[in-house]
């Protein structure tokens, strides 16, 4: 181990937010990813968030071509990627232009002076030189010619200039690993494996990494700043790894399929940002019984899943808002035919194409109500990257237990965000084996289980159970087509009762933080979990009687939710939309819930929620 973590010059920090920012071609995502692995291995808790441009290859040096990766790590419970950045690594002027606004006053900015050419400054839209005009005065600035130092470090490997230039990110990574006392052995091994076919590239990258690290280690660095230590976070013993929301959903679906005793998952999708990652991840899991199908469009993707469900497999499709709109008719068919289905919606900013790479929570109404006719289904939302595993399993359980489509709401943030995950004890995961109908005696396809109101799952291939289903209304007693008015009313009520009855098969709503009554409940759902939790924690530390209530089940709501909410004087509902859950809660429980809404394509800052808590209570005092 070559780290100087024990260096006496180091200062201690509870938690740190670093943002690596550069041009799309500068390898910032790789840099952030490697820093994340080394940080996780060092025992810190962490959350990461990549922020990359929508353009595949934006022109180099432009502000819209800036790609960034943010990591928040610490010795404490880290729940968000961080409101403000402590250290900004800006690999070019455009990155400085775009990302400086998030750097806290007094924070550190590391700039590659070699990239601050007149041409790059002009491309980034600077009219004066930011390193010379005093605009960085509120910050600690480390002006380093990373470009030149990198080229020096790799000059012996015979690389073309362009290839040599591409090692700059490893130099910057080396420096940051030194600054926080991180090991770099795993990254060295990773580089050697990644460039196994091009040993000179591997050696050059390792040399750049080591050079950046050595720069920090040597006296040269001390004139600019010092190293820091961040203690290990106190965490539950176990085996850990980092996991992104996308990976956790993929694995949770596989675990759910196993728990249901199903042999196969048919996962059909159509490429759409930011949902495609799930298709890519599952395409590599064929060994585990996953068959992936890239369909010709969103409709065919869910159609194949409905067909697969009819044939007795787990059908799963994944999309984002606009694709969800296209799937609507097929969801109606799955509701009418009462087939199990999981639909993952990685929500993004809309309407229409909107901002495809930016997160929003604006598809809640669509998930709960967005179909023609009375067409209820179950809706779940994941709160964190690791929660995605449990929620995906739960989606499979509800779909197969209640023979219903289930919408799992994720978002562009969760799809990419990563955090450490304690790998669960696989023997203790829930089990909910499906019992396919095999007995022909008395069978018809819409016989109902008296407890769940679900119909039997009868697979083609089963002798004696040949039956026909479809989108036409069915007779309650025979399963044949029926236009009888009373029967339609009865079937409509039954479909509604089946979904409402899920409330009896899910846990009661608990309070994530705080008491189950009090001055204010901050009620959230989805990926706002971390920001809300931190804000409520701060409020409680400040003596405010606040609680955090976070909903996993959005349709139906847990059966005690109304009663729980009524035990609070004020209810604030932060959402990354224009006010959706707040309306559902008001409609369901007639409670005076108030919205806190943000639609900027960005997650909440903790401070925004803290301010809302104080403002709400302030108003309450004014009224009193």
């Amino acid at each position: 181990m070559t780290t100087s973590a024990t260096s006496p010059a180091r200062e201690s920090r509870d938690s740190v937010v670093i943002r690596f920012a550069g041009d799309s071609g500068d390898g910032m995502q790789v840099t952030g990813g490697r820093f994340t692995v080394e940080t996780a291995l060092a025992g810190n808790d962490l959350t990461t968030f990549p922020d990359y441009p929508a353009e595949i290859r934006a022109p180099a040096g432009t502000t819209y071509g800036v790609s960034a990766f943010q990591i928040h790590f610490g010795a404490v419970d880290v729940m968000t990627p961080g409101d403000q950045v402590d250290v900004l690594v800006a690999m070019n002027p455009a990155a400085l232009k775009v990302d400086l606004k998030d750097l806290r006053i007094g924070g550190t900015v590391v700039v590659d002076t070699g990239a601050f050419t007149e041409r790059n400054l002009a491309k980034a839209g600077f009219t004066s030189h930011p390193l010379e005009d005093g605009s960085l005065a509120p910050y600690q600035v480390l002006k380093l010619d990373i470009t030149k130092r990198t080229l020096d470090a790799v000059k012996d490997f015979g690389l073309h200039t362009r290839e040599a230039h591409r090692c700059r990110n490893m130099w910057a990574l080396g420096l940051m690993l030194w600054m926080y006392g991180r090991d770099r052995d795993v990254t060295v091994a990773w580089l050697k494996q990644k460039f196994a076919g091009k040993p000179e590239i591997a050696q050059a990258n390792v040399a750049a990494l080591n050079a950046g690290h050595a720069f920090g280690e040597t006296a040269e660095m001390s004139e600019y700043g010092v190293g820091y230590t961040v203690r290990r976070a106190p965490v539950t013993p176990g085996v850990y790894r980092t996991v992104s929301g996308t990976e956790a959903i993929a694995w949770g679906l596989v675990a759910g399929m196993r728990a249901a005793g199903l042999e196969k998952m048919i996962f059909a999708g159509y490429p759409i940002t930011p949902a495609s990652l799930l298709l890519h991840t599952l395409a590599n899991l064929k060994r585990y019984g996953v068959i992936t199908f890239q369909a010709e469009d969103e409709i065919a993707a869910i159609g194949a899943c409905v067909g697969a469900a009819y044939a007795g497999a787990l059908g799963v499709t994944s999309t984002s808002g606009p694709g969800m709109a296209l799937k609507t008719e097929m969801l109606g068919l799955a509701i009418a035919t009462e087939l199990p289905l999981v639909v993952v919606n990685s929500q993004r900013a809309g309407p229409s194409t909107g901002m495809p790479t930016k997160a929003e929570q604006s598809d809640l109404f669509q998930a709960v109500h967005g179909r023609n006719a009375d067409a209820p289904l179950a809706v779940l939302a994941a709160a964190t990257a690791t929660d995605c595993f449990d929620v995906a399993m739960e989606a499979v359980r509800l779909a197969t237990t209640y023979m219903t489509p289930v919408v799992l709401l994720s978002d562009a943030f969760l799809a990419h965000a990563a955090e450490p995950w304690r790998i669960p004890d696989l023997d203790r995961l829930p089990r909910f084996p499906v019992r396919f109908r095999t007995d022909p005696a008395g069978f018809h396809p819409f016989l109902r289980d008296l407890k769940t109101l679900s119909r039997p799952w009868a697979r083609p291939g089963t002798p004696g159970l040949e039956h026909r289903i479809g989108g036409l209304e069915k007779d309650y007693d025979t399963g044949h087509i029926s236009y009888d008015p009373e029967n339609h009313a009865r079937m409509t009520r039954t479909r509604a009762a089946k979904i409402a009855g899920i409330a009896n098969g899910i846990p009661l709503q608990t309070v994530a933080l705080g008491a189950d009554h009090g001055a204010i409940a901050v009620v959230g759902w989805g990926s706002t979990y971390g920001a809300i939790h931190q804000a409520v924690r701060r409020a409680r530390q400040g003596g405010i009687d606040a609680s955090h209530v976070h909903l996993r089940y959005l349709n139906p709501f847990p059966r005690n939710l109304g009663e729980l909410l009524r035990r609070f004087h004020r209810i604030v509902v932060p959402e990354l939309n224009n006010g959706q859950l707040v309306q559902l809660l008001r409609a369901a429980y007639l409670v005076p819930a108030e919205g806190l809404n943000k639609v900027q394509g960005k997650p909440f800052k903790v401070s925004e929620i803290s301010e809302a808590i104080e403002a709400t209570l302030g108003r309450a005092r004014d009224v009193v």
Partner: protein
Amino acid sequence: MTVTTITDAELQPKDYASDQEVRWCPGCGDYAILKAVHKAMAEVGARRERTVVVSGIGCAARFPYYMSTYGFHTIHGRAPAIATGIKLANPDLDVWVMTGDGDGLSIGGNHMLHVLRRNVDLQIVLFNNEIYGLTKGQYSPTSRRGTKSPSTPQGSVDYPVSACAFALGAGARFVARAVDTQQAQLVGVLRRAHAHRGASFVEVFQNCVVFNDGAFDGFTAKDGAADTQLHVEHGKPLMFGARKDRGLRLKPGKLELEVITLSESSVIPDDVLVHDETNRALAQLLVALEPPAFPVALGVIYCNPAPSFEAEVYAQAAAARATPGVPDLAELLMNKEGTWVVR
């Protein structure tokens, strides 16, 4: 669980009918197609529990309700997508898609294109009546130009699509045609479609007695049928006419067909084309033939098998399993670099 062995080999055509009353208009061509499907299934010994009939929306889409097999009446145009999912979930199932000209070529045209190019192992039977029946008589994508209908009172101005030319263009590897009233030929074509592994596309000219009666009389009327129909057979000369005295050949120097009439000698000239159902270029010429200058080509026009989609998908899945058996979940979650232990 009790295992009942059902010997479907002994089933009669009527055994493939469900107990539901058939509700097409009296005289509808769909009755004849239903009858032919029942007969073809009996003849090939289809097992009811392994057979799935999938449809979209339209008159033809009622089909599954009249079958004693598994069946799924889905939504407009989407039957190919749902059938693809069924085959992916269980490739052992024998899946039929029943569709129409509006369902399969208008609202579901995209799915039809892709299911054909993918070569999913399905029998796709497209009932072409050149009209929308269930929605009461609007013109369809196969309606001839000038068709007067409630939505085109002055006559349609758009040009129709040819179902078989579309299928060939999409990359279908089995394309056949039949007429609803010609039971023997229809059953034969359905049997061939069933035997073909991959997507089999069968266009059936089906008469709608209510909204488009007699649309195909020009070549289906009994008197004159011999001169207006060309029943193709692999390896046989492309001959037609009451006395089998007319044949097709390439117009010298051009990629065009022409009709020649044989002399009294009845010796078939060498330049009369012999049907080769594996020849896509010939198939494209044949499906384009139209009266009055040419007869309408019927029968198996193109059949050139290739591995089916779901077979290839499962081959990849099998290859992905380096070791036999399904690996443990723990392997998925643990077997990666970058795990660490907290004690």
